[in-house]
């Protein structure tokens, strides 16, 4: 009998596991995939290491910082700053057809950029910044959390183009809702991206995952890979354990699931009707292009570029097409300030992400699917080179993953990277001893997911234990 079973060995499940194992619980993490990481994973192909998910770790802080989510999670997990080896970004940009704003880990750069490009808006922008909700107000009980971010933004900023430009990176990096964003989520992402900034370990996401797993196992935690949960057994409105895909039954006093809200409800054997309509719709394709040179050699020194054709940023899944290449994210993992001792990455990498329709990708037969990967890669790159130097003649290898790939390895409904639009900020479910953490609890990104696992473990699995 386990004290706590955790479903999913992604960032949130591993973080929750570390907290519980540290305080002497008998805890086991069950993962269906043959590797860890969930939405932030990694793979090796043709001798190269690739990351899935991680463009940047948001919420950047210098080593030894006391404040902010990164400092908090390092303390809570009893890790050291060196375990993350985060190196800061060089600098990122928001590029629309008619305007460009740069930002970096120094928040004053964005402010001066707004003053330069939108001089009449700077006072409104400063008032917006001083009226952002604080992280402490974001437990879901603040009534401002669910307000429309577009509405609040219009109150401070009268230039529509600036509103669209500010929303673009924040929606791209963490908005599960189509078209608009919850103001609370807007504040979280605004702080994470514009006030704190981006970093990355030289070795990518695998370094962070390696430290989390090592810590968890070192504390006596058990991790079972290839162990998908087929069913959560419910008796008298309490979860009593799980049944794995292979029929093995495991008992536990409580269960913490990072599988997603709809996905978890579907596992519960006391429920027959699940509202699948509540699942998220936003999924992506991402391509990785390996170059025969460093991106800087072709004049590209940006860490991340969030681009958009035209003045209006459209954040919805493409209804009638496989992909919508009008907006996207360009990321180059080369463009971080790695230390001289560790050196830069040996090969140039350009990653491009665009919006995609899960159902359309899933309906394609094998041949059509392979052909679509190539044609959609070409369309995404053609759109992106309007906003960066044309790198196409330097490409020596590519890989592309689609909503179908995301669904296949994460089991998230619709391959929805940021999960369902309606979050369960308190992590509760219809059962007294089944809780949600991870993407559908509300915090997204690497730091957000880890904080989610920690806070739900603290709230339900530790204080009451």
């Amino acid at each position: 009998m386990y004290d706590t079973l955790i479903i999913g060995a992604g960032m949130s499940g591993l973080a929750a596991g570390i907290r519980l194992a540290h305080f002497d619980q008998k805890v086991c993490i069950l993962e269906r995939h043959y590797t860890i990481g969930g939405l932030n994973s990694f793979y090796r192909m043709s001798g190269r290491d690739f990351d899935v998910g991680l463009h940047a770790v948001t919420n950047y802080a210098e080593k030894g910082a006391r404040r902010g989510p990164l400092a908090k999670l390092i303390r809570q997990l009893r890790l050291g700053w060196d375990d993350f080896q985060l190196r800061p970004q060089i600098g990122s940009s928001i590029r629309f057809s008619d305007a460009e704003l740069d930002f970096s880990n120094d928040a004053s750069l964005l402010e001066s950029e707004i003053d330069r490009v939108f001089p009449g808006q700077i006072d409104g922008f400063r008032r917006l910044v001083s009226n952002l909700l604080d992280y402490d107000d974001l437990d879901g009980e603040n009534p401002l959390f669910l307000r429309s971010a577009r509405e609040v933004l219009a109150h401070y900023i009268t230039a529509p183009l600036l509103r669209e430009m500010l929303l673009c990176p924040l929606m791209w990096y963490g908005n599960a809702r189509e078209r608009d964003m919850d103001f609370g989520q807007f504040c979280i992402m605004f702080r994470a991206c514009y006030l704190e900034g981006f970093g990355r370990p030289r070795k990518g996401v695998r370094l962070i995952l390696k430290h989390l797993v090592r810590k968890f196992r070192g504390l006596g935690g058990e991790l079972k890979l290839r162990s998908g949960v087929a069913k959560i057994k419910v008796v008298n409105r309490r979860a009593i354990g799980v049944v794995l895909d292979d029929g093995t039954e495991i008992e536990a006093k409580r269960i913490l699931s990072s599988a997603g809200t709809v996905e978890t409800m579907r596992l519960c054997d006391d429920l027959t009707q699940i509202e699948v309509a509540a699942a998220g719709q936003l999924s992506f394709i991402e391509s990785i292009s390996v170059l025969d040179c460093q991106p800087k050699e072709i004049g590209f020194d940006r860490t991340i570029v969030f681009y958009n054709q035209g003045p209006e940023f459209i954040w919805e899944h493409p209804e009638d097409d496989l992909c919508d290449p009008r907006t996207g994210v360009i990321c180059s993992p080369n463009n971080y300030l790695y230390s001289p001792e560790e050196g830069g990455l040996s090969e140039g990498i350009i990653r491009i992400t665009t919006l995609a329709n899960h159902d359309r990708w899933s309906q394609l037969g094998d041949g059509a699917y392979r052909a679509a990967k190539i044609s959609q890669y070409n369309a995404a790159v053609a759109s992106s080179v309007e906003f960066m130097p044309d790198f196409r003649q330097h490409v020596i290898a590519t890989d592309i993953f689609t909503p179908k790939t995301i669904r296949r390895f994460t089991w998230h409904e619709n391959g929805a990277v940021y999960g369902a639009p309606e979050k369960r900020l308190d992590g509760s479910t219809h059962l007294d001893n089944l809780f949600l953490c991870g993407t559908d609890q509300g915090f997204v990104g690497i730091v957000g997911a880890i904080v989610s696992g920690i806070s739900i473990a603290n709230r339900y699995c530790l204080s009451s234990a």
Partner: protein
Amino acid sequence: MTPVEIREEIIDILGDIAPDEDLSDLNDGIAFREQLELDSMDFLDIVMELRKRHRVQIPEEDYGHLASMHSTVTYLEPKMKDIVRT
């Protein structure tokens, strides 16, 4: 444990929670919250570390006693006086 030993134990717990902090010049009369910027999650951790290490139970209504080193040691003294340091 004597008050001196209890203080050492709290320093050890703080060092565990915040390994990058220099605790050698900690002022016992000033709140942890101000000196180390500890938040409610960190205070919960001090409580849980005491429970884990010494089986000391601290009810939620008493958390306020853990504000500074001085108030913490004073509060813990009767609860930990019979604990033999290992």
